[in-house]
């Protein structure tokens, strides 16, 4: 009997710092530990004692890739508690801002982090060397997303213009009009991206985990909605804590989570499988041509889903820009209310839940933030276990490489969750 241990001490092409340890005894995988060792960042503790008006500025600092997601789930929670609806114009501007984040984040993951795996290349720089025009397309797409973020959010990373109740300043009609030309080019780039990634070779893998995503009755959910699962469960953000429970594991500084006691998956596969009927006709056509059905459970094909979602987000951004009416007031007042508020939105990597308890003066007494990577850790470990079990014939180097691909399929954001990657493979 052969014992093996695989170890990756710092995972490449993932956001943040993490490691992987896998132990194998004979033909049995005895341990799979996705080790998130990035130190806990204590944001929930930072928030205690701060004013409710500060949440979006503090939580946006959790992530440089998806700050809008943190801002959005935060103000969804507090505005829900305070009984405030900021109105259709502000909601539309928030959705446009969030589309910018999806476009930028998806383009980053597709071109710089994920695509090299399908092309046998070590990284995005090698991709740029081998296919300059392709990388230029990816960077144009990313820039289009960043331009939305800068125009609406004030800057591309950690936007400063959004606030509880709306925005400090609403962009002018002319400022949004200037987005149209780069977005029209971006739409062509996004469609070409779908065609390109659909030609990749996808291993035949189907995950059986339950899927969980935000669902909105009127459109493909991004910035708001209720919660839906693949087995037909539906509940509000307020009901999240009744179904989702966090727990500690010794090998990770990020909490794991279960849905009604079982592991589950959030993210593009979940979003697409639950909401694909709500894609725009053009995005739906792109998905069909790329070979996606109504649902997708193959983690390798998540790159196709992200690409289709990029088409959708660009198209949606164009629609929102065309329909823009500068709000009479950029924000509404949100008087403090004592109690507990819950908020969700669809970060690029999946459902992001926030909960805040406020005192009568709006001082935050407690904060709970559950990012998608935390929720997905158990499912990623299960996917790794299956992958290793199915490929024990590979040597350690090849198996390690395959494990890293398996992780990147899920696009974990360790910095968000550390609240992550090195790989250790033990073959006993």
């Amino acid at each position, binding site marked *: 009997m052969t014992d093996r241990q695989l170890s990756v001490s710092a995972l490449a092409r993932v956001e943040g710092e993490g490691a992987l340890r896998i132990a194998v005894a004979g033909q049995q995988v005895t341990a799979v530990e996705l080790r998130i060792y990035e130190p806990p960042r204590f944001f929930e503790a930072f928030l205690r004692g701060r004013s409710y008006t500060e949440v979006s500025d503090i939580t946006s600092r959790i992530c*440089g890739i998806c700050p809008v997601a943190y801002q959005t789930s935060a103000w969804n929670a507090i505005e829900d508690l305070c009984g405030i609806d900021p109105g259709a114009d502000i909601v539309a501007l928030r959705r446009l801002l969030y589309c910018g984040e999806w476009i930028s984040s998806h383009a980053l993951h597709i071109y710089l982090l994920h695509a090299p795996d399908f092309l046998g290349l070590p990284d*995005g*720089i090698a991709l*740029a*060397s081998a296919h*300059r025009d392709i*990388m*230029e397309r990816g*960077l144009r797409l*990313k*820039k289009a997303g*960043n331009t939305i973020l800068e125009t609406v959010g004030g*800057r*591309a*990373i950690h936007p400063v213009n959004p606030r509880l109740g709306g925005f400090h300043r609403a962009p002018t009609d002319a400022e949004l009009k200037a987005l149209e030309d780069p977005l029209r080019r971006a739409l062509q780039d996004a469609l070409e991206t779908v065609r390109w990634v659909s030609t990749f070779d996808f291993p035949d893998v189907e995950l059986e985990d339950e899927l969980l995503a935000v669902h909105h009755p009127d459109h493909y959910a991004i910035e708001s909605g209720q919660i839906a699962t693949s087995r037909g469960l539906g509940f509000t953000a307020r009901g999240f804590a009744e179904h989702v429970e966090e727990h500690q594991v010794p090998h990770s500084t990020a909490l794991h989570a279960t849905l009604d006691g079982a592991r589950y998956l959030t993210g593009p596969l979940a979003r697409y499988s639950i909401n694909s009927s709500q894609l725009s006709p053009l995005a739906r056509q792109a998905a069909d041509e790329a070979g996606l059905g109504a649902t997708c459970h193959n983690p390798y094909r998540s790159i196709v889903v992200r690409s289709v979602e990029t088409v959708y987000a660009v198209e949606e951004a164009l629609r929102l820009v065309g329909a823009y009416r500068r709000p009479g007031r950029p924000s509404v007042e949100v008087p403090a209310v004592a109690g507990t508020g819950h908020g969700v939105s669809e970060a690029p990597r999946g459902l992001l839940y926030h909960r805040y308890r406020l005192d009568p003066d709006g001082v935050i007494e407690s904060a709970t933030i559950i990012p998608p990577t935390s929720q997905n850790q158990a499912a990623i470990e299960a996917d790794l276990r299956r992958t290793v079990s199915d490929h024990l014939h590979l040597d350690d180097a090849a198996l390690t490489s395959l494990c890293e691909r398996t992780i990147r399929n899920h696009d974990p954001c360790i910095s968000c969750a550390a609240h992550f990657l090195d790989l250790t493979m033990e073959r006993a």
Partner: protein
Amino acid sequence: MSAATVVIGLGNRFRHDDGIGPVIAELVGTHRMPGVTAVCVGDTDPTRLMEAWAGAGLAVVVDAARCRPPHPGRIHRLLPGSAVTGTASTHHFSVPDTLRLSAALGTSPGRLVVLAVEAGDLSPGIGLSPRVAEAVPRLLARVLAEIRSAPGVA
């Protein structure tokens, strides 16, 4: 001057000495030198750095450096190919990696000089530590000398 020169102040001014790059870029901007652009890049997006130096004949990047043991305020002049690895950067996508990506895309500046200043304090907060603040006039003079060394600049 035959091609533009750009001075790029790289860093986060909310992490004390990491703000040295933006401080110098702003000072260079006040000199209003023809053909010289000064920009601050405060985030980790590689595209921003590539856009800043694309088409430039000379790019001078000013950044903070963490060294052990530290000699705060000491200035290092680095050129492409210097023995700097990409993994130690406080920026997610390192300057060497961005340069490699830029080269692959054909957007590298004609010439790149990195002036790295050893930091004493990279903790959260505003303002340079005393020894890094003392280095500002010397560093500014080094940057201006690099600019004047560009072909066509008097």
